[in-house]
């Protein structure tokens, strides 16, 4: 085994190695049980998925402004969905469905938790690996299979499903209702496998956080990143089981003739469907019981990364650490009792709607606590405007903008008007999509030197930040106005909708498409920066280039196979000790004891 020098910052003691370092390519990089390799595998999967998802959104945007134009190449690629290069409305819906599914499951759920969480949770808590490394490998490969199943839906007869990422029956449950055949089945199978993968991963994250923390690392000394990964894992554990059950029922309805979600007397294409007595609303309840926690599964890790980075680059401790922890817990708890606000237009009792609305408003409280604490962290700080810092500030901006429109939509009376309009599209993209993605940009640029021992180009990152930041507001800002017109969402075209044409909606849609194309192009700049960074970025073998405090910055870049070279670090302090009075440096790492921080001056500690 190669001898690895670990920083003297890690004053710990030796532990016996848990599993030896693999030598062959397959066991080292493919079927690896090393959490760091698995983390990067998740990240690469998410990078592939995000470009697939963006390509799909591009098709959606093009169809919206050129419903009847022939687009080059498209006719050859999709002879059925886009004959002669003109996308059919069904094809539009299929692209919409797949865009949502790919982005929500394969990007927003995998990268923040499976990617960054896998890589950095064990290192930040001073562990050699996750609690169950082989289970971890299984989680990733199940996720990979799930992604392949989903991609296969493009290539089967009838093409990809078109019942939306929410898979609402009867569209999803009755094969006769759409031209789709096996595509929808593949979609359900993919989601079911994804559920199992996520459940196993959640189990692993929870046990790791509870059981593998280094000595002295109490729960209230955990970095906020770890707290958000931990709470996200709890949400995933409790939510994905429900989606799995719903998926099984839906699969039975499609293929075994049961009637869980299909109502009686349903007539499709002048033919009575042979089902009776089920309810599509039952699916909505089961789906959204998963779906709302899923929103927090996507966004919570971004919140953790943002708190972490704002503190690091403002050189200040996180404002109200305990309040931040309790806010995350409160968001997690409340996230399970607000699912009904996705269903205000389903004909639910106004009394239920009232309760769901009140509970939804309650989530505003912990969200506001977090936002004010982020601002409080920045206030009076010695801010270093690095690219991770910019992305994190961008996250706060997008979270506030997307959150405010959530307060509108949480009101049943207002939601009745807005529900099926672009207002909702603007809301959830800003808060769940783009904010979470900015969290990933922040995490990627922040941890890149640790993961690869090289830096991404700061200049390119900053150009990417500003263009993307302006770009996403240009895309989703006008959608609020479209929603107020109200421009219905999910419609493939609006050629004959007079009131839309006279209110400038067409021009706005064109503007949005142009903004979307430009913003998508800019993402290739990030991809270039990322790939170039891995192979030719500025070398950065320094352990702690950002002068940060948590344990991952006390190990070499990239970290050795078992992170601390057989040692178990001691933790002496909280995660955000910056600008301490009387200290030798302006920061104290978690593994520094008072002597290391203050020298031998008596009484300077505490």
């Amino acid at each position: 085994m190669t001898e690895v020098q670990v920083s003297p910052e890690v004053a710990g003691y030796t532990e016996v190695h848990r599993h030896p370092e693999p030598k062959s390519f397959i066991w080292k990089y493919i079927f690896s049980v090393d959490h760091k390799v698995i983390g990067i595998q998740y990240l690469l999967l998410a990078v592939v998925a995000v470009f697939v998802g963006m390509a799909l959104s591009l098709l959606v945007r093009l169809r919206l402004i050129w419903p009847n134009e022939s687009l080059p190449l498209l006719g050859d690629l999709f002879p059925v969905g886009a004959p002669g290069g003109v996308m059919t409305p069904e094809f539009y819906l299929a692209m919409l469905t797949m865009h949502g599914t790919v982005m929500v499951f394969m990007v927003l759920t995998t990268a923040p938790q499976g990617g960054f969480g896998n890589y950095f949770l064990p290192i930040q808590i001073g562990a050699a690996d996750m609690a169950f490394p082989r289970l971890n490998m299984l989680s990733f490969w199940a996720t990979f299979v799930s992604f392949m199943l989903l991609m296969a839906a493009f290539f089967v007869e009838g093409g990809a499903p078109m019942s939306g990422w929410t898979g609402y029956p009867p569209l999803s449950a009755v094969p006769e209702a759409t031209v789709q055949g096996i595509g929808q089945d593949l979609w359900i199978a993919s989601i079911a496998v994804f559920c199992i993968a996520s459940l196993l991963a959640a189990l692993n994250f929870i046990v790791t956080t509870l059981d593998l923390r280094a000595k002295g690392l109490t729960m209230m000394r955990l970095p906020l990143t770890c707290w958000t990964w931990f709470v996200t894992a709890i949400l995933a554990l409790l939510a994905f089981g429900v989606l799995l059950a719903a998926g099984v029922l839906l699969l039975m309805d499609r293929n075994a003739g049961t009637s869980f979600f299909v109502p009686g007397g349903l007539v499709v294409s002048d033919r009575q469907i042979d089902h009776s007595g089920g309810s599509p609303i039952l699916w909505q309840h089961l789906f959204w019981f998963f779906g709302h926690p899923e929103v927090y599964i996507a966004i919570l890790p971004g919140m953790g990364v943002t708190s972490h980075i704002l503190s690091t680059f403002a050189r200040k401790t996180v404002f109200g650490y305990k309040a931040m922890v309790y806010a995350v817990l409160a968001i997690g708890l409340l996230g399970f009792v607000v699912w009904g606000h996705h269903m205000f237009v389903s004909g639910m009792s106004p009394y239920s709607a009232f309760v769901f609305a009140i509970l939804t408003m309650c989530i505003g409280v912990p969200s506001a606590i977090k936002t004010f604490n982020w601002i409080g962290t920045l206030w009076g700080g010695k801010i270093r405007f690095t690219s991770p810092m910019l992305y994190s500030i961008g996250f706060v901006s997008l979270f506030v903008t997307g959150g405010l429109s959530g307060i509108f939509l949480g009101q049943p009376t207002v939601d009745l008007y807005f529900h099926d309009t672009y207002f909702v599209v603007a809301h959830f993209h800003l808060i769940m999509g783009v904010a979470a993605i900015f969290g990933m940009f922040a995490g990627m640029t922040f941890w890149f030197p640790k993961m690869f021992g090289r830096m991404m180009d700061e200049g390119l990152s900053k150009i990417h930040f500003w263009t993307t930041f302006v770009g996403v507001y240009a895309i989703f800002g006008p959608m609020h106005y479209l929603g107020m017109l109200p421009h219905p969402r999910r419609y493939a075209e609006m050629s004959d909708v007079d009131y839309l044409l006279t209110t400038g909606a067409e021009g706005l849609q064109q503007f949005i498409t142009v903004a979307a194309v430009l913003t998508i192009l800019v993402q290739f700049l990030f991809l270039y920066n990322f790939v170039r960074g891995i192979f030719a970025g500025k070398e950065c073998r320094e352990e702690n280039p950002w002068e940060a405090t948590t344990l991952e910055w006390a190990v070499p870049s990239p970290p050795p196979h078992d992170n601390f070279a057989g040692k178990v670090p001691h933790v002496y302090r909280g995660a955000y000790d910056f600008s301490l009075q009387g200290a030798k440096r302006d920061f104290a790492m978690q593994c520094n004891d008072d002597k290391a921080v203050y020298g031998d001056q008596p009484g300077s500690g505490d």
Partner: protein
Amino acid sequence: MATSQGAATSTVPATLTPADAPPGIEGGGDFVTLPPVREGGWEGPSGEDRIVQRYKLGVWVGMGGILMFFAALTSAMIVRQGLSGDWLPFSLPPVLYVSTAVLVLSSFTIERARKELLQSNPDALRRWVNVSACLGLAFLACQLLGWQALSGRGIYLASNPASSFYYLLTAGHGAHLLGGIAALGYIWARVRGSRPWPTRVAAVEATALYWHFLDVLWIYILGLLLFWR
């Protein structure tokens, strides 16, 4: 401020050589008695019982996910029953009571296996693991007989929502029990091998816990099918 938060009790020396680490973490194929359970607090980096605790914690957490799966099916069943007037209750096949008895019995045999492990008796451990796995398979066979009895009466998966839930709940439980049987097979195969001692204890303890959980889960499902018809 943060420096004094949750001050660590520094009873462990700053450096510890591998020689000080508790024995048995690596190699150590001997069948020795289980060390005493630690009394709270954080004792060392690689205490044997820590691994046992970890695996048991994993099972406890996993139960949460499995419970949510069956909670979702339960709520779907209750809602579906109240939706429309097409719910046709049917009497459960009597063989279910046999299968219940078999499964409850298997929980006792698993406990016996656990006891043999703690008394360092590998042959008896393997024997009782075998018995438990056979009882598990017998349970599954009884469940299949239950399906056969129902289909003999013309009640299939799609006949009625009541029967749909019957088939789904029993199948869901059976699939989880198959996992338990696989774990018993793993113990049976590995108990003589060169696995380190703590991982063997962990495997037996975790499997026993999981098995008891499936036992209780089945009694819950049976109650649901009996009393929520």
